[in-house]
């Protein structure tokens, strides 16, 4: 009797397993694994004529991606993503610290305010930034107003269409991703530890270096990843804010598909970008693990 009921439940649970397992898995195979697999196949193919693609398992596209021209673009993407991450950290740390000191009822409002821009369309936020930064934009008008009142001659500053603009745009978009994890790390911090260190004669700097930072290090790492990874593969910000030579890797990939019509090479470049992203994540996980132990 008991075993019969047990078997029935077992069968039932197998049914539930299949019902919950099959649809998401089929979806992932159809729309994730299959497309990525095709990209992998394409990256080993060659363009024949104008539109035909021949699958002949050559490494040519990857060798071409190793050309100094493209290596430089990869390096530049890393450099810009790195600077963005660093700036986000420098800005986020005091901001996160400030939030922990805000009164409780204001805290929630500020956190929601920091989260909201994340949901507002990326394109719209970039466009809003353009309206502020362009030569006839609000920032330049403000400068002009000040200059005129001081009796100075005014030349509009060219904020847009250079690498600085890309960095400003990326910081603007990714800042909440750094503030929120650091805040989460600081919020649980035991204030008495700080007090104890101070009583034992540490300076503020020492307290932060030896007591606060080690505790929030995982949150800082998490924030850095949340900024660095999307910044590395960002397409829209460099496209709209960068200059003619301000191409990052994602823009070069787009060009292969929409303009140069060299799909195999574009596929190879995006595989390299995926490998690099996974590589960065792996390194991060390893470092995080080592620090923990």
């Amino acid at each position, binding site marked *: 009797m008991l075993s019969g009921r047990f078997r029935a439940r077992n069968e039932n649970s197998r049914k539930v397993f299949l019902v919950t397992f099959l649809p998401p898995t089929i979806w992932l195979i159809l729309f994730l694994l299959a497309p990525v697999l095709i990209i992998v196949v394409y990256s080993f193919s060659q363009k024949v004529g104008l539109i035909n693609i021949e699958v002949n398992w050559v490494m040519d596209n990857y060798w071409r991606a190793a050309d100094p021209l493209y290596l430089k673009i990869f390096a530049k993407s890393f450099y810009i993503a790195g600077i963005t991450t660093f700036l986000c950290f420098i800005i986020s740390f005091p901001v996160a610290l400030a939030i922990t000191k805000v009164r409780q009822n204001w805290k929630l409002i*500020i956190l929601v305010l920091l989260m909201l821009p994340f949901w507002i369309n990326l394109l719209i936020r970039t466009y809003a930034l353009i309206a502020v930064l362009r030569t006839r*934009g609000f920032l330049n008008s403000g400068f002009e107003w000040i200059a005129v009142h001081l009796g100075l001659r005014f030349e509009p500053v060219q904020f847009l269409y250079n690498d600085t603009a890309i960095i400003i745009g990326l910081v603007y978009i990714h800042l909440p991703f750094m503030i929120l994890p650091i805040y989460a790390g600081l919020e649980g911090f035991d204030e008495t530890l700080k007090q104890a260190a101070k009583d034992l004669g540490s300076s503020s700097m020492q307290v932060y270096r030896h007591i606060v930072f080690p505790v929030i290090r995982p949150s800082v790492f998490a924030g850095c990843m949340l900024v660095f990874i999307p910044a590395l593969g960002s397409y829209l910000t460099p496209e709209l804010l960068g200059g003619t030579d301000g191409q990052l890797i994602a823009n070069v990939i787009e060009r292969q598909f929409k303009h140069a019509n060299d799909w195999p090479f574009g596929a190879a470049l995006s595989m390299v970008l995926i490998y690099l992203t996974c590589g960065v994540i792996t390194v991060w996980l390893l470092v995080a693990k080592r620090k923990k132990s």
Partner: protein
Amino acid sequence: MEKVKLSLFGEFISAIKPSLRNPWLHISLLVTLLFLYTPIIVLIIFSFNDSRRNIVWKGFTLKYYKKMFSNEILVEAFLNSIVIALITTILSLMLGVLTAILLWRFQFPLKSLYQGMIMIPVIVPEICIGIAFLVFFNWIGWPPDLIWPLNLAKIIFAHSLFCFPFVAIVIRAKLVSLNRECEEAAKDLGANAWHVYRDIWFPHLKPSLIAGGLLAFTLSLDDFVITFFTSGPETITLPIKIYSMVRFSVTPEVNAASTVLIVVTILSVCTAIFLQKESLKKGSFE
């Protein structure tokens, strides 16, 4: 002597520090919020500006909104975006709930690998997902000009792929606090599986279902990069249309269209946050 002086100086600094440090921290917070919000607020304000020159305030007007709603392409783009977002929400909810139950209830080989795979669409750069879909639909020979709304299917498939992991995360977090004993008790009292789902699971998960659905809706409504590569020239969504307008120039029409999108987004996100908060509060009472 030198040492004494230095330590005196240090004591002085640490004495005035509490009063010095706090204002600076708060100023940094204020400046950051200003940095984040000024462009957006300026954009919204100037969508009501009665001047094409988008920089000097000339008086209040709604004419760009009227213009927008009489612009057939813009209205079509907006409708497309809404339809895509709604169907994506339904699909993501179904897939997300199934995934959440799967990961919560069952142990199976390679489970952590499976969990990782679900997160791939969220981690991999958007552009790679976008071109993967471009190549995929091209390779299987997806018919280019289907009738509305079938021509939106490609975009819906792509959106569901990156939306359902978010739904799964939200639902799974809520499943943890599901009281399995309630389920056992209901079964002992003669409830069938359907009753258990309707009377125990659904009420418990309802806030998370709504929140997850709204997240999927917002993510789909906002997506530009993946849609840009997946959609053909015949299907336009609101972000795609705004993009082609932005490339052209900075105009009040773009401000108006953007404002509409911002308002829809903020409304749905605030509802989601509010519901999450309510359910958290209730959870703490139980």
